[in-house]
């Protein structure tokens, strides 16, 4: 990379490029003197790179803006091209709905205005275009209120620019900017407040009260901006390097911007009813998602004391770095810790990262990305960040009973992975008290599931050793994970079955084919012993042969899966098959999940059979004390969903191929026709048609192209047929899933809920606590083990007071909501069926609420 590029890239950093000098003014001057010369030779390389820097390192935009302001004094033509390009990019981003790019480019234009590169009134015109598009969208007559998400996003973009240029705008074009602010205020008064119901990380206990008073994200930003305006637009988090060059910059010639246009309304105007509205709203929210939902997990005396707008700006910086430097570990961590602000922000940084890790319905990136970022930040700030992370974990742990189930799962996966990167060191003694809590208490389940995942990432003895400082927690470790082979012991098993199993093992050793095994089963075993014993022998024995590793399992399933498939053709039989698998791997949740998952891959088990098994009483009874059945259910649904989304991708790529093939075929045909219609002279005679050799060749081309077109079309049709089947399949899956949830929830909800709520307002002593005697018994046994005293008496305030049935209902409803939310796009497509068959009038209000929340469908529609 030549040095002008490096100087641009590293502008604002303490680095060798600037000889370790971190003074902004000096750096800008140094960079300016190199870049201005470079422009003469290769200006056409410089401005795209400059724009790229601004787009991808947006926290440095003020520095780039000032530099461009200086360049504008020297070379107006260069800067004109740059501005023109930035504007083309913005227009393109608006049309394609690239949220981050739109937001950043508007900030860039704002900063260019500060450096006298762009006329303030031109910027206001951009604001007004967005404002007017937003206002139209939410207008009930002229607009499409279901698309409010886009309108809100545009307003967010306008407001987000003000920390960077509010002062200048108010100074230079006070009336115009005032007009914009009035417009925003008017917009706020006609839009609908956005409810976080269904996507908030914590279940809001008194949600009905808060929902009315609490500001939504846009109102919140508005109030921060108003606060900024009351402070005369002064803030700490935005560097203003242009002020150092003001004397020079004033003489610059400001460029105009041609107007930008927002994309047209995505459909005919008007207010839609019920389902259609909900569907469109869902689509709009997917395209213009809310970027962050603040967690507020740290107590106010811990989190940095910042002005409201500074907090917003730092969040913007952090989210931008996370977004644009995804995949660049070193730079990502370095920029995260090195933001251009004069205050500390470790707590805010931790809270922001956790807000992304736990963002619902989906974080922008896979959760492992945030795991990596946190690991890297712990290394970059070894003295500070690990403790802040630990504080976040403790804060989340304290509120875990209110945590959304999906978030809880993400937190378990993250925490176990994080600890595995730091030698599994954690002060477990702080949490030893969970042993005093009932088995279903969310904190206890959390500890148990973290330990389960740690064991999976490592091995049992190692994790046992890691809880050394709280040895009693060993009780929450999973079993050692060995298989339970029915036919291993001499005693206790039926000798005939044992003999059959041995015989089967010999067949495998003797490399008999699946066909041979099938006939052995059908002729020798099944007639004499019946289905159950035959299934037990075959499944247990094959699993035992495949028990050594994942690959062993796959190998045995590939070779002998047919034997199982032949036996288990309907759901009843497959449910028995799963039961056999879970009995063999009863001590190993991971292998149970893997085996079931692979069997579904090989289509030995249908997703419907898995749903039925998960909702069989044995599993239902542990819904609130173990993640294991939910993991298996998650796998089954996600595999079904993956199949359908793969098909959709293949179809859309085939559709493109069809268009290409059609074009090629018609071109070939035209070429042939034109050649045929030409007159040529052969042997002195005029003949219709060109040189016969060429005609022949063209003919064969045309035929080939036609064949190609037909064949692509055929594969498209085949895939479409598969898709139609997959759509039916997923609809059946969701219906079965919902019906299972309904059946499982009906009675417990009836028993446990009062006045439509499950959370106890006062004491719930008089509630029935009669079920599952076994767990109560075991609890009593727990009391005999010596208890660790709580390191911190205040922990008692978490006093957990739900009875088992209430917790069971809360957990199950939580998963119901989580599944609905994760697959909302899919479910919206089948909503009519769902309304007819599941969401009937007699459905329990809490079930309805869970499903509606998951879909973000208004309950009052």
């Amino acid at each position, binding site marked *: 990379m030549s040095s002008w590029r490096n100087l641009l890239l590293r502008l604002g950093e303490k680095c060798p490029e600037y000889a370790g000098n971190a003074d902004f003014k000096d750096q800008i001057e140094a960079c300016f003197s190199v870049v201005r010369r470079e422009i003469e030779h290769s200006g056409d390389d410089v401005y795209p790179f400059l724009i790229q820097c601004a787009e991808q390192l947006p926290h440095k935009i003020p520095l780039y803006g000032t530099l461009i302001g200086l360049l504008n004094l020297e070379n107006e033509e260069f800067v004109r091209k740059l501005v023109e390009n930035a504007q083309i990019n913005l227009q393109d981003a608006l049309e394609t709905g690239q949220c981050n790019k739109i937001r950043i480019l508007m900030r860039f234009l704002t900063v260019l205005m500060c450096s006298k590169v762009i006329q303030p009134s031109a910027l206001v015109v951009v604001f007004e275009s967005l404002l007017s598009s937003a206002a139209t969208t939410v207008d009930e007559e002229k607009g499409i209120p279901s698309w409010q998400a886009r309108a809100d996003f545009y307003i967010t973009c306008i407001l987000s620019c003000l920390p960077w240029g509010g002062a200048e705008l108010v100074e230079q074009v006070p009336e115009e900017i005032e007009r914009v602010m009035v417009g925003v205020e008017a917009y706020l008064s006609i839009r609908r407040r956005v409810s976080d119901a269904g996507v908030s990380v914590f279940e809001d206990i008194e949600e009905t009260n808060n929902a009315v008073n609490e500001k939504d994200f846009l109102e919140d930003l508005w109030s921060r901006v108003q606060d900024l305006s009351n402070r005369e637009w002064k803030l700490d988090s935005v560097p203003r390097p242009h002020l150092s060059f003001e004397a020079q910059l004033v003489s610059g010639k400001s460029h105009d911007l041609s107007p930008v246009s927002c994309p047209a309304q995505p459909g005919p105007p008007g207010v839609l009813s019920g389902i259609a509205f909900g569907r469109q709203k869902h689509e709009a929210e997917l395209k213009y998602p809310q970027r962050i939902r603040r967690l507020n997990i740290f107590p106010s005396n811990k989190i940095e004391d910042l002005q409201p707008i500074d907090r917003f700006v730092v969040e913007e910086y952090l989210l931008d770095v996370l977004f644009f430097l995804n995949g660049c570990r070193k730079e990502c961590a370095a920029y995260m810790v090195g933001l251009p602000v004069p205050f500390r922000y*470790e707590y805010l940084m931790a809270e922001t990262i956790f807000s992304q890790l736990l963002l619902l319905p989906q974080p922008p990136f896979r959760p492992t990305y945030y795991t990596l970022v946190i690991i890297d930040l712990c290394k970059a700030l070894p003295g500070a960040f690990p403790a802040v992370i630990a504080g976040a974990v403790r804060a989340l742990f304290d509120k875990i009973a209110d945590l959304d189930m999906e978030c809880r799962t993400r937190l378990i996966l993250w925490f176990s992975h994080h600890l595995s990167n730091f030698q599994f060191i954690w002060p477990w003694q702080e949490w030893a008290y969970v042993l005093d809590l009932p088995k279903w208490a969310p904190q206890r389940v959390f500890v148990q599931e973290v330990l389960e995942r740690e064991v999976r990432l490592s091995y049992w003895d190692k994790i046992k050793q890691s809880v050394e400082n709280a040895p009693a927690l060993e009780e929450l470790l999973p079993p*050692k994970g060995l298989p339970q082979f029915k036919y291993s012991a001499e005693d206790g098993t039926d000798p005939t079955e044992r003999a059959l199993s041995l015989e089967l093992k010999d067949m495998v050793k003797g490399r008999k084919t699946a066909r041979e095994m099938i006939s052995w089963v059908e002729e020798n075993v099944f007639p004499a012993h019946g289905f159950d014993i035959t299934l037990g022998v075959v499944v247990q024995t094959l699993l035992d042969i495949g028990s050594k590793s994942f690959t062993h399992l796959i190998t045995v399933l590939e070779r002998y899966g047919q034997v199982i498939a032949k036996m288990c053709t309907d759901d009843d039989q497959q449910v028995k098959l799963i039961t056999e698998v879970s009995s063999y791997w009863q001590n190993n949740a991971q292998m149970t999940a893997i085996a079931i998952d692979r069997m579904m891959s090989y289509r030995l088990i249908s997703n419907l059979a898995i749903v039925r098994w998960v909702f069989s009483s044995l599993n239902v009874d542990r819904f609130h004390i173990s993640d294991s059945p939910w993991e298996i259910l998650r796998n089954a649904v996600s595999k079904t969903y993956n199949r359908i989304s793969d098909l959709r991708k293949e179809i859309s*790529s085939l559709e493109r191929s069809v268009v290409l093939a059609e074009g090629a075929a018609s071109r070939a045909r035209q070429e042939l026709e034109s050649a045929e219609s030409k007159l040529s002279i052969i042997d002195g005679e005029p003949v219709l048609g060109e040189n016969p050799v060429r005609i022949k060749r063209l003919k064969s081309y045309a035929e080939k192209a036609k064949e190609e077109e037909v064949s692509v079309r055929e594969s498209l049709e085949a895939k479409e047929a598969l898709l139609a089947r997959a759509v039916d399949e997923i609809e059946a899956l969701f219906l079965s899933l919902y019906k299972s949830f309904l059946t499982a929830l009906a009675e417990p909800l009836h028993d446990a809920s009062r006045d439509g709520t499950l959370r106890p307002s006062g004491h719930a002593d008089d509630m029935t606590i009669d079920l599952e005697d076994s767990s109560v018994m075991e609890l009593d046994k727990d009391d005999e083990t010596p208890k660790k005293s709580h390191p911190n008496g205040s922990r008692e305030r978490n006093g957990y007071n739900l009875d088992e049935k209430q917790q069971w209902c809360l957990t199950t409803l939580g998963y119901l909501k989580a599944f609905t939310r994760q697959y909302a796009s899919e479910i919206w497509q089948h909503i009519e069926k769902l309304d007819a068959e599941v969401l009937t009038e007699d459905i329990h209000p809490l079930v309805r609420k869970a499903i509606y929340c998951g879909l973000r469908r208004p309950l009052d529609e």
Partner: protein
Amino acid sequence: MASLFKDLAKISAYRDRRFPGTQEEFEEALLKSTTVYVGNMSFYTTEEQVYELFSRAGEIKKIVMGLDKNTKTPCGFSFIMYYSRDDAEDTVKYISGTILDDRPIRVDFDWGFQEGRQWGRGRSVIRRGGYGKLVQKELEAQRQLVDYGTGSLGSYPPVMPPPQYGRHSGNHGHGGSYRHGRGDYHRKRHREDDHRSDYPKRSYVRESRRASDHESRPEKNPRFRESGDSDEEDDDDRKRRT
């Protein structure tokens, strides 16, 4: 995204000599592949540990553990096949350089597993490129960083680091070579495993670790060898890349 810091053209600094084709074809293969190569693993790491970690980046299709040619035991590398290219990319981005079983592993795109490539050479060779030392250093650095404090939030000592805030830590280790959105190339993906496996089956010689090794693992983990002799990753054929 982030194209400023990645040389897009370079997906791998290496070239596997066993790859039957030109450099261009090799790079093309890496760009399309849904297989990743994992190096610097502990000899004791099981497939299930690998599965737990790597399934966090996507649905896994197959795992092939690299085995020592002579002893037929794992020798520190493996191949993981995903169904989707996106998942393989995420693995290279997010898992490379993190710890599995006490060792910093590296993850790279692989051009595709073929029978025979699972065999390590079964002898130590002199390291090329010094990657081993680098990861040792990283692990060492990590050991010193764990400090969660004790007690509740309120009892934290002042946790602030020295005032130098924007410093680079310098030990981020291997960032993983990867490539950014390159348009819509073909992403191979067959989730429906009804058809037979893509690769010839290999005979399985390794004995169960689950049962035997885990229980016999001594208290102090002997698996981590001190710097200077952790050469197993070099046993992999990929290291013969030029």
